[in-house]
């Protein structure tokens, strides 16, 4: 077998293990370990098992994930966000799927604070899902909404992926950030359209509010929204005034949530303890998967599979449309198995020069690529956003159920991708205007 064939065989075995319900992290680590052994030898296999897990977890950057998780869990257990959702329910009662729509808007707002979609999903997950379930939303819609909405976190600036792309492609990060605004907003509205259409077609999914709500009720409901506004004010204010970076925003958010809950009088020992334990459970189950995904990237790097796929695309020839379709397929395929940074590292060295020669704007492509990689975050079998939501909802929903709930949002993503390709101005308008 050639190296590339071994790479694809490894993917096949990985799929089989996952189907047999081997924990995802174990499946990834095992296939990568034995795969590297076969490709390069035992020394490199043992080496990667020694080097990668520690160096991956011992990361300042990743610290925002447990911190945003903690903030979300604290908000939930101390009831900080309940008032906000009650208000949203009353104000959006006429809109089909109002709470889900409020969740998407919440994620889009949160996206301006965090640079990663996992952190965004983590923060929104524990806040939004139980509130939607409390109002008898279908679990698939509730969980699918948050997992998908989390991807907006990497599209609307700041964005870790765009920073890395900017460095690799040598294009201005500020232009990518501006371009991300258009793609992020289009995605936001695409997801809202999905929710409205689904709720219209099947009101069971998101039961409309039947009680009479007077304007007075609506205004009164606003009184209980102060904890969330205070939290948002603190996090946004600190970020934009230069007090902290997005990497630090999670910890500050969690600390603020603790203080607000204490002031509000809803911070009990039990709620604090539950928030901490859930943070630990979710972080550990998420990190072991991310470590496995990181090892899989090295295995595929050794196998040359990324080069092989990229070369196949370049062999398609000069037709720009065919090139774009080929590249789209590659990223949808890689996105199924790899985490975004790995997929980027494996392919960009070959694809960037090709795109540059073909005359595509590398700013436009960077934003489109981010969109593709974010789609990968919610496609089976390895979808990190889905796993975050699975972690925060526990037994309320299976991973299969969450993936099914996401299917509809993927349809919207398909439209968004086609629109971004057909009308590059959606991305390039702001960079051209302000750059």
């Amino acid at each position: 077998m050639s190296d590339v064939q071994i790479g694809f065989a490894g993917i096949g075995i990985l799929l089989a293990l996952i189907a047999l319900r081997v924990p995802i992290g174990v499946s990834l680590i095992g296939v990568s370990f034995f795969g590297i052994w076969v490709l390069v030898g035992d020394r490199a296999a043992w080496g990667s098992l020694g080097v990668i897990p520690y160096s991956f977890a011992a990361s300042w950057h990743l610290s925002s994930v447990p911190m945003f998780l903690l903030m979300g869990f604290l908000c939930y257990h101390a009831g900080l966000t309940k008032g906000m959702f009650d208000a949203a329910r009353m104000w959006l009662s006429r809109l089909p799927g109002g709470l889900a729509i409020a969740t998407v808007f919440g994620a889009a707002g949160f996206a301006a604070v965090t640079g990663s979609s996992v952190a965004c999903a983590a923060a929104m997950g524990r806040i939004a899902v139980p509130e939607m379930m409390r109002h008898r939303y279908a679990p698939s819609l509730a969980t699918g909404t948050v997992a998908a909405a989390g991807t907006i976190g990497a599209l609307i600036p700041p964005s870790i992926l765009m920073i890395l792309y900017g460095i690799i492609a040598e294009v201005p990060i500020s232009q990518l950030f501006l371009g991300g605004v258009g793609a992020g907003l289009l995605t936001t509205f695409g997801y809202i359209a999905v929710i409205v259409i689904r709720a219209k077609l099947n009101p069971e999914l998101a039961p409309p509010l039947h009680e009479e709500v007077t304007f007075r009720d609506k205004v009164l409901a606003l009184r209980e929204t102060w904890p969330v506004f205070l939290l948002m004010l603190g996090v946004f204010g600190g970020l934009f005034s230069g007090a902290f970076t997005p990497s630090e925003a999670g910890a500050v958010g969690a600390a603020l949530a603790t203080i607000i809950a204490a002031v509000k009088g809803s911070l009990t020992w039990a709620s604090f303890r539950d928030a901490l334990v859930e943070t630990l459970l979710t972080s550990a189950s998420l990190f072991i998967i991310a470590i496995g995904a990181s090892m899989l990237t090295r295995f595929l790097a050794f196998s040359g599979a990324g080069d092989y796929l990229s070369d196949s695309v370049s062999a398609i020839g000069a037709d720009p449309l065919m090139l774009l379709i080929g590249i789209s397929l590659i990223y949808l395929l890689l996105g199924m198995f790899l985490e975004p940074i790995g997929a980027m590292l494996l392919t960009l060295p070959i694809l960037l020069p090709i795109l540059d020669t073909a005359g595509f704007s590398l700013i436009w492509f960077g934003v489109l690529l981010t969109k593709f990689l974010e789609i990968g975050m919610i496609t089976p079998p390895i979808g990190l956003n889905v796993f975050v939501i699975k972690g925060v909802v526990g037994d309320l929903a299976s991973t299969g159920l969450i993936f099914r709930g996401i299917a509809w949002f993927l349809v919207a993503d398909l439209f968004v991708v086609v629109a971004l390709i057909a009308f590059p101005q959606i991305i390039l308008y702001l960079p051209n205007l302000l750059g």
Partner: protein
Amino acid sequence: QDLKIAVGFPPGSAAFYALDNLAKNIEANSDMKAKVFALSLLNLKETPPGIRDGIADMGFVLPPYYPAEYAETNLAANLSMLATTGEQIESPGTAMGAAMTEYVFLHCPECLTEHKRMNQVYLGTGTSPTYILHCTTPIRTMADLKNKKYRSGAANFGRWAEAVGGTKVSVPGNDIYEAMAQGVVDCGMFSATELTNLQLFDVTKYITTKIPGGVFAGVATNNINRDTWADLTPEQREVIFKASARSNADVTWKYYADAKRNLNDAPDKGIEIIEPTEEMVKFSNDFVESDLKVIAEQFTNDYGVDNAQAKIEKVAELVDKYKKLTKDMADDPEALAQLYWDEIMSKVDLTTYGLD
């Protein structure tokens, strides 16, 4: 023999340029194959243990990431401010890189031992150009330097920030962009190469040249795994050794050339370039002088390095030697590589080097 070479920087970076050239030189002069993995195999932090454990055969190692493991090498690297004080040359990195390389190869058996402990064979050093201030606010006078927040990547630059009355802030490489964009730091201290390397053109508004000075010398350009090294034939080892002389020179030259280009481009991108006052330069030079004692103390106490004072004097002497020898080599990597070979690497006994 297939050599896997890891670079924790993306294609387009100076480090990638040098190691890609290395791979080409190795393939052209031997029957070996060499493949360079840019970022996809090992990142900067993973590279030293990654080479030790054989994930990659060779790679671009930054010893400062592992202060305990490479204490002796880092002592020499910490003296980089010597390259920019005293006699001024066009590209101080050429002097510092060659001085480091001679020091480690010929005068510092402890250095070679610590590379050996990491299961690696040292093959030389190339460096960055001069560290200067990249700021979001203009720094024109001594008074401007006060009460600013400085991003410093190393202890000596942190002490410089405190000496001028500012605050040192630790920000990892990937966070610098956001930290400068949002004003979490006022000035970043690094070489002008990073304007493109880390895409900092967008967020830099003012550059003050010459200060703090110093270069980034904590580099082992292409360390190789000891088992890989031992498995090679003597002829193959010589090919790699000669190619390494060139890749060390390439690192220094490419970093320098990119910095020069970036400083040329900066005004067109709306960045004002400020010359520091005499007073600022003098203050910085005096700091370097007094900081040498601090370095000696720190490496003796915290790192357990013996005879730190004598080692510092040796490195200082070598820096002066190579300032004279390399002063016309700023734009000539070929001549610099030849100097590395003639003055240093040809004096290493390849029949035993790295095989003990």
